[in-house]
């Protein structure tokens, strides 16, 4: 393993890979800083353009964009009270009050350092933890894998969404879209409408671009296209100083670990991690009353946890092939177009791709920090780009991205249809991430279920009996039921609390 790690480091430090990591980190930071452009959207837009790169180069670039975008999302929140990404909301709660108090520079500097530490800590866990998980995962058979997918879908559908039932419905919709095309066992065409372009199913990349880009364009285009009232206040000195950073060391490490742990859990993304990190920092703080009024620990905790998710979320994606959130689903699309099938065998089959990728995350974290400290005054201006300009540009990128994947105009149509469906679902408060995860995981689940059906028949058992005959499968089944039951219980309690507080569903949404 250490030979592979060393080789990975050597490949990652090649000049062209350093350049790609730097470019990706800067581009990610800029995209993340634009209000309305999330890390998921950024990666969804860029994945199709990595098609002609080598798999190592593509992954290094996309990984760097991921790191940069997660960090960049906080800049707009701190400066103009508009979060660039959902995960930046927790940072904004204390970052913007600091800006109002004339301490915007301190908030931004703390934000950069905390993001850097969060990213590095989680990458260490990814580097040493993922191979161990992968070696254990090699023992997993079809029955277990099927239930891992079902468990992941149930937690993703239930944990990440406001309403568990809508989350689960979105996940099932994705699983259904995943059935489009030829059934691998029988060759039967399902829901292909005599369109050869659909014989191989709905391409993940095209679905990703449509669901996240076009729906976001329509959301952006709903509002005022140009707000002339926005301005960036004076931010002062950005470097927080060694003494400040030393005083925040505990907060940074704790939140980085929280972020890494949350990232591993399917469905719990950077936004949840940031809020948990912030709330934990508030619990242990000597001055909890300052939270929400410009507490520097609030910014530090939210950002370290936020970026800690990056490495954590890549562990289940690279070792089990299960993307824990929408961003890793988008990254998984990047792996798939380069012929890399994420799952237990990936670490065995492609260590020459994975280790350079993991090492490049260390560099990407360093690069966005250097670029942010060096160029914050220019990066900050990005937050003022009007949504009326962003929306048409994203449409153009989505169209060229969808087309370039297979050079088919039909794919532009799929992108648009899925984009409009995505927009309607967002308006009806359905989450989109479970859909894309369903599209990716659906064929895997069906393939493994088909194998189980064959095996059960060979053992003269019912499928359910076959599942019950395996301990790990039973554990996963129980966990799935527990996850769904818990999410409904939590939703019931939340509704009760809201009712008691006189808050209606619309206000809650």
């Amino acid at each position, binding site marked *: 393993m250490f030979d592979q790690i060393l080789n990975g480091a050597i490949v990652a430090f090649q000049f062209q890979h350093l350049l790609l990591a730097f470019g990706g980190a800067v581009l990610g930071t800029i995209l993340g800083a634009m209000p309305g452009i999330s890390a998921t959207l950024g990666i969804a837009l860029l994945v*199709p353009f990595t098609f002609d790169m080598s798999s190592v180069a593509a992954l290094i670039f996309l990984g760097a964009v991921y790191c940069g975008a997660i960090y960049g999302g906080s800049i707009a929140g701190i400066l103009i009270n508009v979060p660039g990404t959902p995960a930046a909301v927790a940072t904004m709660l204390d970052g913007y009050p600091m800006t109002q108090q004339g301490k915007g520079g301190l908030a931004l500097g703390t934000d950069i350092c905390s993001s850097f530490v969060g990213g590095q800590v989680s990458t260490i866990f990814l580097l040493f933890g993922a191979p161990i998980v992968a070696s254990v995962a090699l023992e997993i058979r079809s029955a277990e894998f099927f239930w891992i997918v079902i468990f992941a879908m149930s937690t993703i559908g239930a944990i990440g969404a406001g309403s568990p039932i809508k989350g689960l419905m979105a996940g*099932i919709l994705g699983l259904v879209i995943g*059935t489009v095309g030829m059934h691998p066992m029988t060759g039967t065409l*399902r829901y292909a409408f005599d369109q050869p372009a659909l014989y191989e199913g709905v391409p993940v990349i095209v679905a990703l671009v449509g669901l996240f880009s076009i729906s976001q364009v329509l959301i952006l285009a709903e509002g005022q296209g140009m707000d002339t009232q926005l301005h960036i206040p004076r931010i002062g000195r950005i470097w927080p100083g060694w003494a400040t950073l030393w005083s925040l060391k505990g907060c940074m490490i704790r939140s980085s670990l929280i972020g890494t742990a949350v990232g591993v859990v399917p469905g719990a993304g950077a936004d949840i991690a940031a809020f948990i990190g912030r709330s934990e920092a508030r619990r242990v703080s000597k001055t909890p009353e300052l939270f929400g009024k410009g507490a520097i620990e609030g910014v530090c905790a939210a950002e370290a946890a936020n970026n800690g998710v990056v490495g954590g979320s890549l562990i289940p994606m690279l070792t089990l092939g299960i993307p824990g959130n929408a961003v890793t689903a988008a990254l998984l699309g990047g792996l798939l177009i380069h012929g890399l099938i994420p799952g237990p065998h990936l670490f065995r089959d492609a260590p020459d791709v994975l280790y350079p990728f993991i090492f490049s995350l260390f560099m990407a974290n360093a690069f966005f920090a250097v670029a942010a400290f060096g160029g914050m005054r220019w990066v900050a201006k990005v937050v003022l780009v009007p949504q*009326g300009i962003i929306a048409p540009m994203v449409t153009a990128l989505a169209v060229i991205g969808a087309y370039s994947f297979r050079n088919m105009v039909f794919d532009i149509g799929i992108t648009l249809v899925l*984009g409009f469906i995505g927009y309607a679902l967002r308006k009806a408060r359905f989450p989109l991430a479970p859909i894309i995860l369903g599209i990716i995981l659906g064929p895997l689940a069906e393939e493994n279920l088909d194998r189980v059906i064959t095996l059960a028949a060979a053992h003269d058992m019912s499928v359910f009996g076959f599942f019950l005959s395996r301990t790990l499968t039973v554990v996963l089944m129980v966990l799935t039921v527990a996850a769904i039951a818990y999410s409904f219980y939590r939703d019931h309690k939340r509704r009760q609390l809201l009712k008691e507080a006189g808050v*209606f569903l619309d206000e809650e949404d």
Partner: protein
Amino acid sequence: MTRWPKGAEARDAISAIVFLVISIVGFVAALDFPKRAANWPLWMWGLLGGFSLILLAGSLRRSPSGKTEKKDQATFGRSFVNVALIVAYAVSVPILGFFTATGTYAIVHMTYLGVRPFPLVLAVAAGGLIFLYFFFGFILGVPVPHGLLY
């Protein structure tokens, strides 16, 4: 007698009905597949239909918030125009060619979204096209659809 809900409950009820109808259509279509190919979609459509019924029942049972989504109603017309512009753009790409269609679409959509002054719109559209041409067409070598004009 159950009254038709309002506000968020109406939104949930309508979504549930749409999902239910789609589930029934999908389920019926899956009945024509061979048994092995039909198993998974039948389960999925069945589950989707079941959850739709639960969502529908929940939205009918909940006390209505009494809120009408004024913002949604106001943005409906605007969204309709946005959708129409994007569809027109997508249709024009294979006819006019990617660059011509993109330039035209960007100018029209930015103007509709209220970006001012107009020279800024033209400058952004031109800058965007130059970026797309050189970065994607030239550096990355990404193929773009060509049409009558370019």
